[in-house]
């Protein structure tokens, strides 16, 4: 699924076909979000993970519906490289420690939905469902520090105001997080043009840039994007 500003969720087609296509086009990593899993409090049918793992020869991460070490083990044993936790980590921060202890930090991604509120950045929760989406009143920078101390190996910062509107990544917020983030930081939310990708690498110093709608719609072809970024001296796999 993809989200357009978290309010217009669409199924974008057969995931196997899509996964194979992105892999062939040179995507460096794929992230599969089941963004309805947390709010509806249901478990995920994970048989698709094995089917995806059989065809993909690049790393992929699964996000959504991972609430326990057993859930995570199930996902990793099915062939995913990484698991990403968001709402369950907010509900039970010790989950991050438990996952890092059991599988190593390199498997444990913490996803953070964040929004500018006044002069601060605040963490939001249950963003898959507009009726339940709310601020946790946690400051994003505090939460980033906390999850790194608890063993997160990567942070995906999704800047909600930018998400799905294709006006560019939230550079100001990403720069603020970068300055305190010692683990790999992935920018999410706002990509609309190839320039936006170039800017987020150059100006926010992120380790990766995540996008969905521009790829799903065909607005940006991955090989063209990589050629553009390499021309700008972003170190990236051709």
């Amino acid at each position: 699924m993809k989200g357009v500003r978290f309010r217009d969720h669409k199924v974008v087609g057969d995931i196997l076909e899509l996964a194979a296509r992105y892999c062939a086009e040179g995507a460096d990593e794929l992230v599969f979000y089941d963004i309805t899993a947390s709010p509806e409090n249901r478990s995920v049918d994970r048989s698709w993970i094995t089917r995806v793992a059989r065809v993909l020869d690049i790393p992929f991460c699964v996000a959504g519906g991972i609430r326990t070490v057993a859930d995570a083990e199930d996902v990793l044993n099915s062939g995913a490289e990484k698991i990403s936790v968001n709402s369950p980590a907010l509900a039970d921060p010790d989950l991050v420690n438990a996952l890092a202890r059991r599988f190593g930090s390199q498997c444990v991604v913490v996803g953070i939905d964040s929004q500018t509120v006044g002069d601060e950045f605040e963490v939001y929760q249950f963003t898959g469902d507009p009726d339940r989406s709310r601020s946790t009143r946690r400051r994003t920078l505090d939460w980033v520090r906390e999850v790194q101390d608890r063993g997160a190996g990567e942070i995906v910062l999704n800047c909600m105001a930018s998400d799905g509107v294709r006006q560019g990544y939230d550079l100001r917020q990403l720069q603020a997080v970068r300055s305190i983030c010692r683990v790999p930081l992935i920018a999410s939310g706002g990509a609309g043009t190839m320039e936006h990708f170039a800017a987020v690498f150059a100006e926010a110093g992120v380790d990766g840039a995540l996008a969905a709608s521009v790829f799903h719609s065909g607005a940006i072809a991955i090989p063209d994007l990589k050629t553009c970024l390499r021309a700008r001296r972003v170190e990236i796999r051709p």
Partner: protein
Amino acid sequence: MTDVAIIANGGANIASLRFALDRLGVSSRLTADADELRRAPRVILPGVGAAADAMERLHALGLAAVIPTLTQPVLGICLGMQLLFEGSEEGDTECLGILPARVTRFPDRQGFPVPHMGWNQVVSRTDSPLTRGLADDTYVYFVHSYAAPVGPWTEAVTDYGGEFSAIVRHANFHGAQFHPERSSRAGQRLLANFLALA
């Protein structure tokens, strides 16, 4: 007969390695049985997790003494490669002692977040059968916080704020710090090269 025995040392995520071997048309079996390991034409020591846990499991399975005596081609991947060394700073662990060096944690350096996670280039130092057919500066996929120093065992290096061993070898023991099973065509080539070793 099984082409490759994968050492079952308890880590999660053996699936992606098995699927990569499947794609190469090679049969694999996960095993902790010493006799089965001795008989297998090829052995892979995988590893995701922490060095101390992994060595503890190998000792508990009675394999820590067996692995160094294997005579067929053996490939350690990621932590599996690090375990081939004398020891690791991770949990101050004594490892298998096949390679005479200690694995250390990446220092904290501005601009080089740890774990080193993502695609990076490998540069050959020697004419290794493992890297045959791979373009120099090929990108492969890394995920690790500890790394092995460069030494006589180094067949290829990678630079991440300093050079470390990306591919190592001592006699029939080979190691890759990256994940060939998730390194697209380059990784597939490396695995095929390993399977083709005499």
